[in-house]
């Protein structure tokens, strides 16, 4: 499949089909499906942001939900005060980025678990802070705004309009992040993740690359906050509760760390597993969610995105080369290192 995807004609064909589907499907699908897909887009982008700092950058962040929350609050504030929608979007993107930058400037000096503890503080302190700043945040009642309802002229249902909004934002964000992680920055970031000493000796400053990846992750988090507000149309201190941060982390790893496909799967996981467990037994949701998470990781420690390579690896298990050629820059070295012993795992040493 991946060999084939390298052919330009096939790629363009697939792209056209995908775009056509993205235009037509929202018109056809029932409301609840549109709504679910829109939520998946929201959290896929949130997981993507986490992937930038953690998957690609190697820094544990337990604070991603804080930036989603901040983005949603900025959006809600802008919408309730009748800001221009583009201005609101920009504010929801820039303010979390600035917050992320400031935090990273200080926190990037720390490594490993220390940075995890500093980021843990964001949602934990953010929640009471959101309650206290009730002039802007509406306190514990939160803010709600139906700014993303479909305008009259479109003739669309609200859910269709909202899905279009978040689809466009999600696709653009994914494309930009893809270019980022596969470009010069991404390669440098991969070296920083691999070995900071090597990076320094190559003239790459680990500190600034950590700051940069954290800032981008915060910005992407802010974007997902705008999307959150577009779909849910309500935000409150509970939006940035700490345990959502943990779930985002789980979603990232279940999807597949440091892969774009993994971010999408992570979004699906985040949204769909609670729905699934509710359908099985609403009284046992916690137990079922834990069991599903452990089961997936037990079978696929590299996340669901590693499934195709895993299958390919199994099919050719007698051969010497592990799996299909990996699609990610960062994976190349790791796979070579891991050799045939653990074909599914990458980015570990």
């Amino acid at each position, binding site marked *: 499949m991946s060999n084939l995807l390298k052919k330009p004609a096939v790629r363009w064909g697939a792209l056209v089909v995908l775009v056509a589907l993205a235009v037509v499907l929202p018109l056809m699908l029932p409301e609840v499906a549109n709504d679910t897909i829109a939520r998946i887009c929201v959290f896929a982008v949130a997981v993507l942001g986490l992937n930038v700092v953690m998957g690609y950058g190697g820094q*544990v962040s337990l604070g991603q939900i804080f930036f989603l929350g901040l983005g949603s609050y900025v959006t809600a504030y802008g919408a309730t005060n009748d800001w221009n929608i583009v201005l609101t979007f920009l504010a929801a993107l820039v303010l979390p980025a600035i917050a992320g930058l400031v935090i990273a400037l200080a926190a990037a000096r*720390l490594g490993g678990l220390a940075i995890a*503890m500093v980021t843990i503080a964001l949602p934990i302190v953010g929640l009471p802070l959101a309650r206290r700043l009730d002039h802007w945040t509406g306190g514990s009642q939160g803010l709600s705004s139906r700014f993303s309802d479909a305008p009259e002229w479109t003739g669309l249902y609200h859910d269709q309009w909202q899905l279009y909004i978040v689809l466009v934002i999600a696709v653009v964000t994914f494309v930009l992040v893809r270019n980022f992680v596969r470009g010069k920055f991404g390669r440098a970031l991969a070296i920083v993740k691999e070995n900071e000493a090597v990076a320094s000796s190559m003239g790459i400053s680990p500190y600034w690359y950590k700051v940069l990846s954290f800032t981008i992750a915060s910005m992407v988090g802010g974007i997902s906050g705008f999307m959150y507000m577009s779909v849910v149309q309500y935000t409150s201190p509970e939006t940035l509760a700490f345990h959502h941060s943990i779930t985002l982390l789980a979603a990232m790893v279940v999807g597949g760390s440091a892969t774009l496909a993994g971010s999408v799967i992570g979004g699906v996981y985040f949204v769909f597993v609670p729905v699934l467990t509710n359908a099985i037994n609403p009284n*046992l*949701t916690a137990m079922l969610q*834990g069991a599903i998470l452990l089961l997936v990781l037990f079978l696929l*420690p*590299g996340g669901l995105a590693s499934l195709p390579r895993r299958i390919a690896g199994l099919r050719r298990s007698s051969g010497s080369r592990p799996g299909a050629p990996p699609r990610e820059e960062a994976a190349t070295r790791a796979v070579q290192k891991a050799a045939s012993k653990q074909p599914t*795992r990458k980015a*570990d040493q």
Partner: protein
Amino acid sequence: MGTFIQLLIDGLSTGSIYAALALAIVLVHQATGMVNFAQGAMAVLSGYIAYSLLGVGLPLIGAIIGAVVISFFVGALIERLLIRRFERGDEHTAVVVTIGLLTLITGICAWFWSYNNQLFPSLFPNQTIPVFGASVSLRSLGTIIVILVIMGLLQLLFVGTKLGLALRAVSINQQSAAFAGMPVGRLLMVGWGLASALGAVAGVLVAPQLTLTPGMMDTALVYALAAVILGGLSSPIGVVAAAGIIGVLENLAAVYVPFIGHDLKVAVPFLLIFVVLILRPQGLFGRKAVVRV
């Protein structure tokens, strides 16, 4: 002045809850190099096991000892059946596995014992004695003493015994440890088992105050992690001291710094971590961390 001393003592008693869990986290980290997010949930499970043993008629002390022993085997089994698969893999995946375990165990506790608050009796009488114009509850005092004893035992284990040395060797470099003829697998199981047993002590110590619920340890876990980072991952004495400092400073800041107040006092330990780590990356009492790269 009375208020000040009372706040100090209250802070230490709250800190002792965090310390109990933090010690278990340090033990697992020392023995396996992992940070176990499920440590609190495992402690809760142990608390419920003790609760059930009480229910079938065991005396309190018997139920606690039973829970500690059962927890040792539960911890060892979890290591063997689940964690083993992720020990040498990606660190982030290992963290997420413990998060999955946290969710699963919380769910199992809720399934068996419901989300209702279950009352759990205390080992220590619920009385207070006056100290410097403040009153100290015997329960807090007992908790603090037990924690201090455990802390001492752990310090001895790591520094003064062959088992402790072997546990640490395995966590630093499994391969070399294996070459040196150590039973690596069994040592890893023992490490998790001991941490789980220690968690059981933590569970039964705090259950009387917080009442048993599946999420009893959720808040304590965050503070315990803060104490672990602040005190240094390698030092039992350090984390207990850090937990005490966190408990006390939090109280004092809430009362005497009007801007912080009781709602934002949770920021205090994190600010403290931030400042300390900038100055001293290995934590207050930690040795320079050995990082598996």
